């Protein structure tokens, strides 16, 4: 199967700004990618011609109200039926940073209660009270059903760049449920993989259970705060200059490669 036949749609709104970064990764993997605006008239009718959907990082609609809130509601009001079909057919949906916030606001994540339309979690302001741009270490949760982390290394390094990334839920029970369901895909950790246990800056935002990324109960919808697209090429790594050479790819490669292999084996079967 030729990879160019795999079609990935990147959805943006005013204020989305990492769409090109994601586009560059997908091009690097040889698949066809398109960037479209949420307000493009043909978006709704075209949506189901794509194999995967990505909501990239940025500040959609300025993150006014709450991060991701306006675009999240826009997705629900304009694309909802198509999105539900997308989910039902187990086609992958990825939200990175602001995209994660959008998926939470659109109630697609964590989706534990299965109630459409009501956000079950929030990405609150960082506990440091400020925007944080830094490289973090992430530990992959083995028990996770997430299809996006299959090819990811056990311990991976991505940068974060956000002001609102503290994952919280209403109570401890909800978080436990998340864990039981295998929905916690990535957690912040120390460089050796031991838990961050909320320690700043290992856990850069104060997230509950050090959560960096979660998937829905089926594993095909995934949202994460760190940026795999900025850890995709070897030259983007923060310490390549220490080794005086860089590998072709960084750890972010694993996320996109997992998605594509999943599409090849499951969606295009």
């Amino acid at each position, binding site marked *: 199967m030729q990879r160019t036949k795999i079609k990935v749609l990147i959805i943006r709104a*005013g*204020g989305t*700004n*990492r769409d*090109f*970064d994601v586009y*560059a990764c997908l091009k690097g993997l040889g698949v066809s990618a398109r960037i479209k*605006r949420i*307000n493009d008239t043909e978006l709704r009718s075209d949506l189901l011609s794509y194999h995967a959907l990505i909501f990239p*990082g*940025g*500040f959609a*609609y*300025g993150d006014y109200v709450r991060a991701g809130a306006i675009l999240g509601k826009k997705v629900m009001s304009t694309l909802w039926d198509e999105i539900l079909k997308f989910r039902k057919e187990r086609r992958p949906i990825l939200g990175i940073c602001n995209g994660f916030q959008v998926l939470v606001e659109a109630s697609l994540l964590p989706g534990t209660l299965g109630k459409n339309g009501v956000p079950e979690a929030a990405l609150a302001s960082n*506990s*440091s*009270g*400020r*925007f*944080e*741009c*830094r*490289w973090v270490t992430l530990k992959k949760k083995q028990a996770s059903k997430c299809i996006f982390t299959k090819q990811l290394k056990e311990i991976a390094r991505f*940068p974060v*760049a956000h002001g609102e990334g503290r994952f919280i839920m209403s109570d401890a029970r909800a978080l436990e449920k998340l864990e039981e369901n295998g929905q916690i895909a990535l957690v912040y950790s120390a*460089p050796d993989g031991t838990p961050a246990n909320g320690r*700043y800056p290992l856990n850069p935002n*104060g997230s509950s259970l050090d959560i960096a990324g979660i998937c829905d109960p089926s594993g095909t919808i995934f949202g994460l705060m760190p*940026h795999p*697209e*900025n850890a*995709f*090429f070897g*030259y*983007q790594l*923060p*310490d390549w*200059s*220490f080794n*005086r*050479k*860089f590998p072709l790819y960084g750890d972010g490669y694993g996320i996109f490669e997992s998605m594509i292999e999943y599409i090849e084996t499951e969606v295009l079967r």
Partner: protein
Amino acid sequence: MSALQALDRENRCIEIVNTTLERAHSLCEKLQIGLAKHELAQVREYFQKLRREPTEIEIQTIAQTWSEHCFHKIFKSRIKIGKQKTINGIFRTFIARATEEIAADWVVSAFSDNAGIIKFDSSHWLAAKVETHNHPSAVEPFGGAATGVGGVIRDILGVWARPIANTDVLGFGPPDFPQHQLPPWTKHPTYLMKGVVAGIGNYGNNMGIPTVNGSVYFHDSYVGYALVFCGCIGLLQPRNYSARARPGDLLVVAGARTGRDGLRGVNFASTPLSKETDSLRSAVQIPDPIVEERLMRAILAVAERNLASAITDVGGGGLSSAVCETARRYSCGAEVDLDRIPLREESIIEPWEIWLSESQERMVLVVPKAKVSEAISTFQHEEIDAKVFGKLTESGEIVFNFDGDEIGRLSIDFLFSPPLPTLEVRSRSHSSITTRRKDSKLFATNDGLEADFLCLLASPNISSRESIVRTFDHEVGGRTVLKPFQYPNSGPNDAAVLKPVLSSYKGLAISCGLNPALGEIDPYAMAASSIDEAIRNNVCVGGRRIALLDNFAWGDPLKGENLLDLVEAAQACYDVAKGFSTPFISGKDSMYNVTPLGEITPTLVITAIGIVPNIRKCLSADFKTYGDSIYLVGRTRSELAGSEYARMKHKQQQQQQLWVGEVPRLDVKFAKSLYNTMNKLTDQGFVKACHDISQGGLAVALAEMCFANCLGVDITLPVLRDESNDRILEPFELLFSESNSRFLIEVSAGEESKFESMMGKLPFVKLGSIAGKKIVIRNSLGETIIGLDTVDCYNAWRKELMTVSAS
């Protein structure tokens, strides 16, 4: 007679011809029209010939165009110094002449566009611009800083380039300045810093443009004030660059709607701040990065399709400046219908206010008639308002219409010929030089060097900038190859390296240099050192073929010796840029940086843009491997005047004099040959780290190299002779002197002889090697004078400038 009576409401005329010059001038003052008396005389003459009074919009347009902010009168005027010397304009004599004489074939456009343009590779150019936004940031730090970033991004869009990186150099009063010493209407440095940092982060992060380089500098003279230098670098394809407007082409305004914010900001920016500062908040514009983000996409699409014949940013001076300067550049006239400008609110807004408003996120495009509908629909696709509001004409006049009536008409030639009287200053008297360079008895000793060292590491101008810089996204765009901090422990790097083109490993290095503490001692040395620092920072990471941008921030140029200082600094710009063959491609001067507490120290910020032929070879500043050798490269002299060490000592001893000893000199010829050799060395595998020696001298540079990987060093200070006075340097001088053109480098163990032979006759000395977990510095007798755990030094250095608010 009140101002309102004089303003003829029917004809919107202002009576200046049919009255005395005195009265006309006081009327202008009442109406806040910023024209000096001799300028007003020339306006009167012009309208006398026309046998009429000027209309409101005419006189406002003239005042805007002739403001210092827009016309840069100080940089253009003839200056007579004493009886002998005459300078035919600072800009022409020093800045532009350096660029002309260097005549680099890779400079595409210098000083003529919204931004300077240089070649990158066969199919790409780079654009660069650095703006100052000091006045607005001092009044309203968040809005002032954010609109500064927004404005410089539009300058890059104004040459059809995609913005790929931001730089920010900030200046504030000391963060520990006692609150009770501030006059009541003055804002505390920490308040200003928090606002400015938030504003910069907000705009850059929202736009998705990484902030990759900059500096934060604290100086007593900045108390009550904020210096904000916002820079932006862009990438463009030559085929998208369009500058060929012709009469008949239509004028299109695109972007945000026009409101009353930022009215007369240029006149505001050309006068000293005063007690009434807070009432000037309306002169500060309101930022909306999300509109600019869409505007950026639309403009890049217009560029890609070649739909326009020219473009310019709407910044200081509003539409007035944008349209008049476009008409002048293309030797055209223009006709504008101001009622067609989309307004933000329906509230009463006068035509001249529409014309002069500095509302943000707007651009003016010149579009050939045949392409106008496609251009407008390109904007609409991004949900951006775009509207035709006039056209270029052959007349040589700017004609203003409102609701079908002509409300004014001015000759473009007249508009761009303000009177530039020769500025006369007395040459510097001998006594003033000696007071300035007072050489008090040496206060320093070699006792307590360890404590001095720790104190320096924690001082505001040297300590870690992490708490500020990490609030700026430096990763977005995925092009950042060498980051502001080195992983894992966030040691500092000297310059940012970007990989702008996806399919190529060619990179660009962005660095900056400034040395404001020297400004009040010796402006020539200040400027020369700033340029050298910017260039050597660039050389550290492997940058070469360097272009420079200059940003002057000065006090009242007509007071005291400020103008002489300016001339000397500009002379240094010429000498040093010429010597290095590093042309200036863009610049901006900001005058009247005066606060209720006095004038700022003469400040020059230099931004350097270099090329890195292969990013795989670029160097980070962190020490890497145990056993490797550490070399000091360059000449060290006893040059402590204006140094961080001297300032710290003065503060500790509460001395009045702010300097002692010699200022750092610069031997450009020597530095150039050293930097060429450094370029060759960094391309070799055996040089593994390189760091510039600047604030805090050798000791601080050494510590900074240890931090990223938490390594230790064991070095012995060499016996070095200061050639200028043939004296053996004391340990404190070796450790803390801030002599220019020096580096610390790490050379692979076993490769020392290769390194030494490549250095040839250039001065270098081996200091020691990377070892253990302690920073050990010995004197030439082998006695330990500093022996501290790297971790302890690191903790001192990481003292936060902006504290974390929670947990």
